[in-house]
């Protein structure tokens, strides 16, 4: 998809449950597979990566849908630590 649409036209939205898994997926999508295995070993796609529970996502989601589908997960998961996990591997400018 990145080859077809260009990395600037692709945004990945994660739904992972904790900081570690979010960091792992984000790193794979930004810098390549950290375990150096599989098709993204050494392939830095440099994609924009967000988590579905980040404020930026909440802003663009219909509040009714958010309430019905995401509010519970926002309460259940540790969103602050998930964002910290993302920011460890996200380029600074996107994190800002």
């Amino acid at each position: 998809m990145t080859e077809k649409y260009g990395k600037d036209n692709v945004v990945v939205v994660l739904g992972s449950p904790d900081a570690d898994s979010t960091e792992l997926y984000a790193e794979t999508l930004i810098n390549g597979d950290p375990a150096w295995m599989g098709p993204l070993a050494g392939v830095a796609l440099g994609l924009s990566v967000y988590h579905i529970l980040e404020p930026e996502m909440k802003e663009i989601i219909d509040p009714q849908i958010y309430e019905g589908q995401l509010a519970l997960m926002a309460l259940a998961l540790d969103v602050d630590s998930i964002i910290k996990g993302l920011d460890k591997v996200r380029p600074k400018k996107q994190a800002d």
Partner: protein
Amino acid sequence: MIPESKTAQKNTVIKGVTYFLAHVPNMVRHGSKPTREIESTPNLLKDFIEHQIPFDKAVSYAPNQVYIGNLDPDDLRSTPMPWWKYDVPSANRQGPFGEIMPEEEFLGMMKICDEFEILILEKYFLENTILQLKIHPLLEDKDIEKLDGKGVPLSQIEKFIEQEGAMPLYIKGDKLIGCCRRAHEEDFNLIPDILIENLTNKASGAMALRHLNAKFGCQDSLEYLIGCGEEAVGDRYNRGGGNMAKAIGELANCQNATGSDTKAFCCAPVHAIILGSGLISSGIFNNVAVVAGGSFAKLGMKFRGHLKNGMPILEDVIAGIAILLGEDDKKSPVVRLDSIGKHSIGTGSSQQMIFEKLVVEPLENLNLQMTDIDKFATEMHNPELTVPQGSGDVPRTNYRIIGSIAAIRGEINKTQIEEFSEMRGMLGFSPTQGHIASAVPVLGHAVRDIMSGKMKRVQFFAKGSLFLGRMTQLSDGVSFILEGNNGGD
């Protein structure tokens, strides 16, 4: 005169549960993920061999001891992590709920299950295995007779592998001791990769059912068996046709039973418990067993995360389970058939709605609060196996969600979510064997603790990812509440 109907609704109880693990480190390379990765990167094979653990380590691995009932799930909270670095003192391959079997013996059991000369074992290996199996309390003379004289020279095994594409089988890393052959020259559903899935499933399910028979003396009284594994038995005209339940029943000498398979991905066991309870409650049958063998394809599924973290590859067991359902004996825990939870087709797939339907609605039907449930049993995947690969701590996430629902409902404060999750949840201890991990690993502990009075009520709920088969985008889920028997008072 027309006989009186025997179908008035009666209570169904769960009399007991047994579990089985086969430790099969040398089969891990043939799991779905390892097979594909080794094919593209042959050097990986040495990692699979180097990251095996021996049988005694598998026995002393704390989550395995919990699975067979030698430890309580809550004992894991005081067990040092990582668990794989810690040997449980006085660990035993036998437990109150079942056993852990070494790979050599399990290969022998697979051979006993093999009615069509699919599994071929080397002569000296088989002779040694027979000596081990002869002292196994659940194997009989007629089992051993099936093995006597069946071993072949190594050269013949090598020929099957080279000329027919048989799947090689090893012990001790790279010692060739057998192979799994295809069963038809042209049938793509009777190839070694599928047949070994089914044979391992049958053997592990049969061992779980043999333990159930031995523990509860139910061999002759069982009338119906419901299979709920994730295997698909059949030839080119009927892939998934079944009936594994009956095949397993035959191996467990359940002469008076018939059976069928229930398919619903990971939540099939909970569906099967509900269906079996209905058969008993309606009076159709008095004794039903739900049975499942393990998933060969899932061996080593998350090995990459394990290698990355310098761990052994711990998805190295094939698991089985057998559950005995019966008429109300006034002592065993009761399945509350008046509060079955279900994810309906129109429910939608958000986590919020799924939990509403599976957890909240069944409780409301009985005018119960979430705090009336002592423990919730959900997907019990061992986090040590899933976290390194980025799949998160599945039980913990589920318990956090349940706690959050309790907070939203005003039963607890938001600050109590963690405490609620810990008190009414458990740490995951199940092997990542799909259907096996889904709520039912808790059942044996729950039956024991409800009968001892330690707990009153446990809610079991399981979810299934139907979309994986590409026939629907739907999820699935079902739940039931198990509670103490008031003895007819």
